[in-house]
């Protein structure tokens, strides 16, 4: 479904990602682990076309995303939940979700489905996004992405700064999506929160792909965590 082949990218004058390769199938949860500054967010931004890949291919369902206009990538069926949520802060909950619906050309039936998953959003449709609690903001950021009914969901540190009950909700949501066949690329610092649900783990170090392994393998060899990311 998603196939990165030796992708390099970065910011003006500073290369960050170096020839990263990765493959992800429908219904699979792939987790990217790596220290701060390893290039995890950069990788997400490159997939979304917000940063231009200087090298390599990003094939999604047969389309090379590096060759199409960045604003067309969402329409291919990719939902993006950025690090720090990045909601449209002064727009209402309903308007934030509306942007997601527009991106996927979806109707209010989709909206009802998403509100069914996050009833707390349904109660706050006319509230501005920046007046929500941290947990509600994460629900909205996730809901906004789900409004385009993505085949692939990119989640960049979705549990950052959340309390345990909220983390559990996010995890349950991810597992439910996996069961529906959605592919999930997950960046996460809390190794404990993801090891139990991930299928595959990728270690990113200095923008390079250090190792890829099944989550089962990592569970059996916890010393690898210490070796790669020092926890």
């Amino acid at each position, binding site marked *: 479904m998603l196939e990165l082949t030796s992708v390099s990218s970065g910011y003006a004058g500073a290369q960050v990602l170096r020839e990263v390769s990765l493959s992800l199938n429908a219904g699979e949860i792939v987790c990217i682990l790596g220290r701060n500054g390893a290039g995890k967010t950069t990788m997400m931004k490159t997939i979304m076309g917000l940063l231009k890949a200087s090298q390599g291919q990003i094939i999604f369902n047969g389309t090379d995303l590096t060759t199409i206009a960045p*604003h067309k990538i969402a329409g291919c069926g990719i939902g993006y939940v950025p690090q720090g949520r*990045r909601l*449209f802060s002064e*727009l209402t909950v309903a308007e934030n979700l509306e942007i997601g619906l527009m991106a996927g050309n979806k109707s209010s039936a989709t909206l009802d489905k998403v509100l069914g998953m996050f009833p707390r959003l349904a109660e706050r449709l006319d509230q501005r996004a920046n007046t929500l609690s941290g947990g509600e903001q994460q629900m909205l950021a996730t809901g906004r992405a789900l409004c*385009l009914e993505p085949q692939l969901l990119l989640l960049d540190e979705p549990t950052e700064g959340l309390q345990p009950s909220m983390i559990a909700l996010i995890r349950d949501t991810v597992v439910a999506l996996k069961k529906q066949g959605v592919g999930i690329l997950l960046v996460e610092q809390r190794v404990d929160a993801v090891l139990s649900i991930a299928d595959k783990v990728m270690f990113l170090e200095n923008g390079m792909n250090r190792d890829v392994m099944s989550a089962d393998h990592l569970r059996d060899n916890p010393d690898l965590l210490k070796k790669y990311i020092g926890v």
Partner: protein
Amino acid sequence: MELAPYLILGSIEGLVTAAVLALMAVGLSLVFGVMRVVNVAHGEFFMLGAVLAWFVADMIGGHPAVSFVAALFIAPVLVGSLAVVADATILKRIKYDPERTIVATIGLLYIIQQVTLMTYGSNARPVEPPFNQRISIPWFEWTESGLSMYWPWGLGTTTYKLAVIGFAVILLLAIWVLMTRTRIGLIMRATQLDRDVAQAYGINVDRVYALVFGLGAGLAALAAVLIVPIQQAHYLMGHDPLLLSFIVVIIGGLGSLAGTVVAAVLIGLSDGLISVFFTPTLAKIIATLIVTFVLIFRPSGLLGKHNP
């Protein structure tokens, strides 16, 4: 001399200024808010609107109402199109970098001004208003024989001036509806708040920028077409309105459309009143003083976000 009648006169003159200023400043504010571009050439789009109105009226001729209405449509569309071209050929190429866009729009200012001087010349030319009945304003006074009505000398306005105020109010309401109640308004607001995430959610940011720059310039041109029957078209007429628009946008709060309109009414009214009682120069001095105090005490403007 009685004070009150002149207060009314000054207020009407001030509201005409406010109406035109609000339209122009909302254009500037929209461009700054969504694109983060400080458009120094905004005054030239205004001037170009007035000059094109003269060309259109001159070419069409006939009844002033016909040629004026034609100018009201044609001039803003032409100026807006020119702005879209400038966006694609200049601003997009320098990636909307804040400093470089200032220099680039200064360049655009001089190009537009000099081309206008070369083609239209240095004369000021009038455009006839579509209608222009004089209205005298009556005043009431207690005399020994009871309440009496009289017509103070010089106390009057024209139907055209009142129409400018009304038309501007309708246009500003239309912009408000566009921004808050329509899909394209939602897209513009989302782009303003987070350009990258908007793009990741399927919004064609390049097209939004072109639209906003064209709309901003079109509003300046529209304001100019409205004022040209009162003020005449001249190739240097963009300077003062540009300065006043910046003042209005800063007082109102950068990027806040409501604040921009409030500030335009404030500056317009004070300009009208002070000009009637004192001199237009004093009005400008006071407007500049107001902006100074706003910058000192409320750096993000009257309705701006994040006031200290």
